[in-house]
C-alpha cells in the first residue's frame, strides 16, 4: 500500500483516527490531568541497575542498537538521556558504543545535554560515546570486547537489534552485569529474555520515554496510543463476528458482514 487513496477506508478509520486521538490526548494532557500508567517492571529496574554500578564503581553500558537514524533510535536516545541524567548525578562512568554515524552525532548532543541539565557538564567525557562501526558484526565484536575489558556493571540495550543481540546479552551476563533491554524487533526478544534480567516487550519500548520521564505531554500520547490499540482490538472482534456471520450465510447480516470485511481488505 503506497498511497492512502488505494483504500481510503482503513486509512481513515484506523490510521488517521488514531493519529487524531493521539494529538488530542497530548494537547489535553498539557492542560494537566492526573494520568495513571501501569507498571513496566523493566523500566523500574533502571535506577536499581545504575545504583549497582555506583556501588561497584564499574561503568554503565548503553547500546542504541545497530539501526540507522530513525524514530526508533531517537526513542532509544530519549531513554539513554534519562539514564545519563542519573549517571551525571552519581558520577558513574558511561560507555556508549554507536553503530550509525548519524545516531552517533545526535547521541553526543543528547548525552551532553543531559549532563548539562543535571548541572555537571564537566563530568561529561566525549570519548565515552564512540562510533565503532556501521558493520553489524564488526560492531558486535567491538562491543563484546568492550564489555569484557571494562567489566561493566550494568548494561542497557534499547533500539534496533538483530542477531547480534545475544552476543551482547551473553557477554554481559558473563561479566555479571545487570541488564535491561528492549527492541522493536520481536524476533530478538526471546534472546534478551533468556540472557537479561529485565526485558521490555513490544510497545513497552515506545512507552518507555513517557513512563520514565512522567512528562505530561508524553503520558497524554500514551493514553492516545491506548485508544488506538483499543480501536484495533474492537475491530478484530467485530471483524471476527462479521466473518462468522458471513460464513454462516445469515440473511442480511451475512451480507453486512461481507461488506464490513471488504471495507478493510486491501488488494
Amino acid at each position, binding site marked *: 500500500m503506497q498511497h492512502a487513496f488505494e483504500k481510503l477506508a482503513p486509512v481513515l478509520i484506523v490510521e488517521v483516527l488514531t493519529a487524531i486521538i493521539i494529538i488530542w490526548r497530548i494537547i489535553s494532557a498539557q492542560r494537566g490531568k492526573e494520568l495513571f500508567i501501569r507498571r513496566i517492571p523493566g523500566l523500574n529496574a533502571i535506577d536499581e541497575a545504575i545504583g549497582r554500578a555506583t556501588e561497584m564503581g564499574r561503568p554503565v553500558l548503553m547500546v542504541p542498537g545497530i539501526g540507522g537514524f530513525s524514530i526508533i533510535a531517537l526513542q532509544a536516545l530519549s531513554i539513554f538521556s534519562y539514564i545519563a541524567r542519573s549517571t551525571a548525578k552519581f558520577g558513574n562512568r558511561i560507555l556508549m558504543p554507536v553503530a550509525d554515524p548519524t545516531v552517533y552525532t545526535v547521541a553526543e548532543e543528547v548525552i551532553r545535554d543531559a549532563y548539562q541539565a543535571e548541572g555537571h557538564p564537566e563530568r561529561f567525557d566525549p570519548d565515552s560515546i564512540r562510533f565503532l562501526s556501521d558493520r553489524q558484526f564488526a560492531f558486535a565484536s567491538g562491543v563484546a570486547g568492550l564489555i569484557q575489558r571494562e567489566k561493566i556493571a550494568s548494561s542497557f540495550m534499547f533500539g534496533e537489534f538483530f542477531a547480534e543481540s545475544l552476543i551482547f546479552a551473553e557477554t554481559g551476563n558473563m561479566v555479571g552485569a545487570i541488564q535491561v533491554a528492549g527492541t522493536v524487533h520481536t524476533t530478538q526478544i526471546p534472546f534478551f529474555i533468556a540472557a537479561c534480567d529485565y526485558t521490555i516487550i513490544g510497545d513497552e519500548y515506545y512507552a518507555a520515554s513517557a513512563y520514565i520521564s512522567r512528562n505530561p505531554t508524553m503520558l497524554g500520547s500514551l493514553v492516545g496510543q491506548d485508544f488506538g490499540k483499543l480501536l484495533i482490538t474492537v475491530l*478484530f472482534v467485530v471483524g471476527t463476528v462479521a466473518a462468522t456471520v458471513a*460464513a454462516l450465510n445469515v440473511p442480511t447480516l451475512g451480507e453486512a458482514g461481507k461488506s464490513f470485511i471488504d471495507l478493510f481488505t486491501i488488494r
Partner: protein
Amino acid sequence: MDAVWQDILSRPGIYAGAICTIGLMTLIYRENAFYRFFEHVFIGLAAGFSIVVLIKEILDPFLYQPVFKKGEWYWTFVFMFGLLFYFIHSRKYNWLSRLPIGFLMGFSAGQAFQGFANTYLPQLAKSFRPLYVTASDGSLDMAQSINNLIFMIVLVTVMSYFFFSFEQKSKAIRNSAQFGRWVMMVAFGAIFGTTIMARMALLFDRMYFIFSDWLKLVQ
C-alpha cells in the same frame, strides 16, 4: 617449509581468513590479547570499507555524477546543508547542526504514515477469521474453527497486555493481560527454538571452513 610458503602464497585469502576466524573465536574462552588484536583489525577494515562504500555508492553516484557529469548543480545545496552537521563540535554555533538533524528526523517521521499503512493495515482484514468454518463437503470443520477461535483469543489478550493507561483494576483486563503475557512466552519460546537451526548451520560452516577449505582434512 617451502611447500607451506607456496601454499600460503597460492591462497592467501584462505590463510588470512583462517587466522582471523580462530582469532575471533577465542572470545568464547575469554577476552584476550589475540582477540583484541583481531577485533581492532576487524573494526578498522569495516571502517575502511564504509569509507569506500560512502565514496562509491553515495558521494560518487548522488553527488559527483549528478553535479559534474549531468549538470544537476542544485545538489550542491544538499552538500552545503550537510556541512552544517560539522558545527556540532562548535561551542557557540552548535545549534546549527540541529537543522540537518531535524530535517532527517522529519524525513523519518513523515514516512510513518505510509509505513503504518503498508505494514499493518493489510493485516487487519487477514485477522478477520470466521469462528465457523465449513469444510469442502459443507460440514463444520471443527479443527479449523477451534484454531480460529484460539487465534482471536490470542490476538485480543496480547493486545490487552499493551494497554498502559486503562486502569487495570478491572479483574477481567488484568487476567486477560496476564494470559496475553503467557501466550507471548509461547511465541518467544517458539522463535528461540526455530532460530537454533540457523545458528548451528553457521558454526558448522566455520568448522567446514577450517577443516576443509583451509586444512583440507575433509573431502
